[in-house]
Structure formats: C-alpha cells, structure tokens
C-alpha cells in the first residue's frame, strides 16, 4: 500500500514500545458490539494504474465543455486559465499546507490572502474584503444573515433576477436562523422591483447584476431607496469577469458585495470547488463572516501578516459567532489571485470587453433566427432568449448534435412559467465557428 510507510516490523516494534500485544489492544474503548472483525464489503486496494484506468473511463463518459461548441453560464463560466496558475497552486507549500494558524511559518499563504483581499476590495470598490467563502451562493446567504445582525431586522427581499440557486441557498441559511426571505417573481429586467417590497422590517434587499438573465442594471437608485428605509443593499455578481467592465457594487452604493469568483483562475469542476468573494463597508467590519488577514509587524518590527479579528469566529465565540464557517476556499482564492495578478486591472478590462463582444456576436446570430426572441435588453456576456419550443427539449436535442446550447431557465426554476427561455453565454473561449454552429443547429431544431 503505497501511501502507508510503516512496515510490519515497524508496527511490531512500535506496539512493543506502547506496551500493547496487538493493534486490537489500542481499540479497547470501542464497544465489543461495534468492532468489525474484518474489512467492510468494498473492493480491496488497487494500483495507481488500476485507479487511473477506472476513473479515466468515467471521465471519458462525460462531454467536456471544451470538446465542442459550448454556451452554458448561469453561475459558472468557462474561461481560459493561464498554465502558470495551475502549476503554482500545485506547489507543495500551497497545496499541502493548513490554515495559517502559525503565522511565522505561513507567511506565504497569509501574504496571498492579504493580496487577495486587496484585489477583491479593488474590484468591488468596497474597503473590507474577507479571505474568501465557499462559493458565491453561500456568500450570498451569509450576507443576508449579516444584514439581519446589523439592522436587527428579520426580512430579506430577493430580486426576481437573483440566480434561483442563490435564492434557495439564502433561504435555507436564513430560514433556519429565523430570517424570512421573500423572492420576487422571476423577471428579466426588474431589479428595481425590490424597492416596492421594502418595509420597516426589511434588513436587506438582494439584487444581482448582471442578473441570472444576463441583464445589467445600475442599482444606485435601489441603494438610495434601501438606505432611506434603513435597509442594506447586497449586490450579487456570479460572473467576476464583469467587474472588469461594469460599474462596481461600491460605486453604486452597495453595503455588501458578494460574488462567485470561479471565473478567474478556476475551472468549471462540475460546480465546485469554487470561491466566494465577500466585501463590505468599513462600518460593517465587525459583523463580517469568515476569515480576515491583517498586516502587522513581528518582534523585530518587520512587516508580516496574521489572521485577525478572530473573536468574531466560531473557535472563540462559539454559539455567538458571526458564522459557523471554519474553512475558506484557500486554494481557489490563490488561483483567483494568481490569475488576477497576471491580468492586472487593465487585462481584466480587456478580457471583459472581449467577453462582451463575443456575446454580442452570439446575440446577433441568434436574433436572426425565426422563432428566437432575445429578451435581455443590456447584457455583459450572457443573455436570455425565448424559443418557439420548450428550451429543455431543445437543449437535449442540440446536445445530441454535440452543441451545448446553454441552460434552460426551467432547470433553475421550473415553477416560473418560463419553460421556453434559454440562457446563453459566450466568453473569450467562444469562437466565431462555435457561434455559427450554435446558430445552424438552433435554426434547424426550431424549424423542425
């Protein structure tokens, strides 16, 4: 067994030092009724070759996004990740290190987190960013809980453009803590509808831009309305590349910005692991969830970094903690930060512009097809179209032609009555040929 260094001779010697006759002597505290006599009913150990073969077969049964025309977005995005990123995150000292609880020998991870926080703060234009969350959806849920703590109010209003999975996640986390969530009906271009729903017990309004239908919204007026009513504005972004081009949450008056950071540095991974971005105003710092890395000095006065303000956290505050979160998404945050360091602000802007241009091209191609109606008025790199046929069936039919046409909205929210709506996304990885292939396949399927 290649991962187990002890030899039978080692084990015998060590048992002798311990003063035990057999290994079973060390398990005496296990009640006799619960001791298994032998291995459970599962296959025995396997060689590296055998495991690689078995899992390789399973991998081959999937159709990778990059294997052909591909237009899925809706919360997870296919982008090119520079080769250096994956190389660096596999450095032993990053991959196989723990949470930096001993700062003297974890300055690498800590400096990365400090740089990551600075990057997230710059992208969102909010001064406080944490060291990452599990993903965008759980960051959204934590933001709702935080708003309730800050305002001491019990209700959150979620826009009809919020990704339905985010709404459901926020509901699960908030409901258990006694915070009520109200999701407005799905709407392509209706973020501002949250204003009408604000009342005296509203802790926060949660809006998304670009929203799940791709619509870009200036939420400044929503911020004003929320603040006038004593509520906080939470701005959600599922496509972090959009920060390169669009007005930032901070610029529009957000109190809390949360985002899915997967787009930068991280692969699709069938939904995880991803990296949640979380930023807020200075005033809200003490109520923020998750880890924070701060600058300080060492005993000789040199700059160094530590995890700080940890009295908010579960290991000290226990049942009064701001959140039960213990891990962050460290390695994904590292990948994000490396890719972001390579891009720089200027590179991110260029990348964002290319994404937008490709999506415009895709929109133009699809708009020309009879039976296809573009619904999204202003978009970044994804948009919604209404089809003459149920979108789920069309997507399945196109998959059979090896074109992954996008995400049927009904998959996210089957009860919304939007069975004919398809969400289409294009990124810098989308070629003109891909777009032509989609247009041809879709025309044929719609006409059929």
């Amino acid at each position, binding site marked *: 067994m290649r991962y187990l260094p002890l030899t039978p001779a080692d084990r015998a010697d060590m048992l002798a030092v311990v003063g035990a006759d057999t290994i079973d002597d060390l398990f005496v505290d296990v009640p006799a009724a619960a001791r298994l006599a032998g291995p459970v009913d599962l296959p025995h150990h396997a060689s590296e070759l055998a495991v690689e073969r078995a899992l390789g077969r399973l991998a081959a049964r999937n159709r990778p996004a990059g294997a052909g025309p591909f237009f899925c977005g809706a919360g997870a995005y296919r982008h090119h990740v520079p080769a250096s990123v994956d190389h660096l995150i596999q450095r032993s000292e990053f991959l196989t290190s723990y949470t930096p609880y001993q700062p003297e020998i974890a300055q690498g991870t800590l400096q990365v987190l400090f740089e990551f926080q600075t990057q997230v703060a710059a992208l969102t234009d909010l001064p406080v960013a944490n060291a990452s969350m599990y993903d965008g959806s759980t960051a959204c849920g934590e933001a709702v809980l935080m708003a309730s703590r800050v305002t001491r109010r019990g209700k959150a209003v979620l826009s009809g453009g919020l990704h339905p999975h985010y709404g459901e996640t926020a509901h699960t986390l908030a409901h258990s803590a006694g915070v009520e969530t109200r999701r407005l009906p799905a709407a392509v271009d209706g973020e501002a509808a949250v204003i009408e729903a604000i009342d005296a017990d509203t802790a926060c309004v949660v809006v998304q831009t670009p929203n799940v239908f791709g619509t870009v919204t200036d939420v400044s007026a929503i911020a004003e309305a929320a603040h006038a009513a004593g509520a906080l504005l939470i701005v959600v972004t599922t496509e972090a590349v959009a920060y390169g081009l669009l007005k930032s949450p901070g610029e529009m008056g957000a109190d809390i910005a949360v985002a899915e950071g997967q787009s930068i540095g991280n692969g699709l991974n069938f939904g995880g692991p991803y990296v949640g971005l979380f930023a807020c105003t200075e005033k809200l710092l*003490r109520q923020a969830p998750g880890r924070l890395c701060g600058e300080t000095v060492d005993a000789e006065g040199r700059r160094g970094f530590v995890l700080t303000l940890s*009295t*908010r956290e579960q290991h*000290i505050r226990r049942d009064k903690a701001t959140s039960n979160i213990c891990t962050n998404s460290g390695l994904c945050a590292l990948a994000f930060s490396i890719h972001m360091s390579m891009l720089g602000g200027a590179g991110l802007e260029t990348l964002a512009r290319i994404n937008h241009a490709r999506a415009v091209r895709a929109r133009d191609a699809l708009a020309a097809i009879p039976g296809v109606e573009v619904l999204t008025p202003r978009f970044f790199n994804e948009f919604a179209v209404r089809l003459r046929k149920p979108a789920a069936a069309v997507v399945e039919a196109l998959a059979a032609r090896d074109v992954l046409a996008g995400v049927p909205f009904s998959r996210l929210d089957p009860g919304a009555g939007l069975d004919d709506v398809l969400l289409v996304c294009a990124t810098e990885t989308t070629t003109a040929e891909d777009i032509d292939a989609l247009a041809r396949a879709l025309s044929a399927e719609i006409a059929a």
Partner: protein
Amino acid sequence: MKFTKDHEWVDLVGDVATIGITAYAAEQLGDVVFVELPEAGKSVHAGEPLAVVESVKAASDVFAPVSGEVAAANGELSDTPQTVNDQPEGEGWFVKIKVADPKEVDALMDRAAYEAFLATL
C-alpha cells in the same frame, strides 16, 4: 465603588452609575482590542448583557450590574481600547447608566468583599 462577582465595578453619583470592568478582569483578558457598547437611551436590566469586550484571544460579555437607562457610553474606547488595560477603573469606563433603583447598588460588594472574593478564585 462597588463590585460584582462578574468583575464589573459600579460608581454611583446621584442616580448615575458609571460602570466598567475591574483591574483583575482587564489583567485576565490580556490586551483589549475592541469594546462594543450600547447606544444611549437603551434600557437595560440587571444581569443582562450590556457590552462586549474583546481581546485577541477572547470575546466576553459584560453584564449590567444594575437596571436603568444608558445615559452615555465611552466613545473614546473605540479609538483607544488599550485604555481598558491602562486605566480599567478610571478612564477605561464603559457606560453610564441612569439607575432605576439606587438600592440595587447597595446590594453589591464593597472593595474589601470583592478582594476577599478574588482570593477564593
């Protein structure tokens, strides 16, 4: 000045009680880094959480030793929390409470009794 077993001190002048944590408590906590205080006007009840004091390693609730209404909170502490360590029973006060019943203060320990109590810990 009167004291509680929870290591708060109370200094009553007229019907206004100034409240803080004792030198012993400040020493035990280590370096104080943050103090969360109630807003003026808030009504408080004896025995309920009044403030939170944080050191790097711990966050501790400070309980109201008496009932009444918060008259003032020591805003200076937000910029200089170390005052709690430097002068816990003076400049490092937390809150002034307009007490509902000054007799509540009489029931607390005097310094000699508090020191005797500390000796038992």
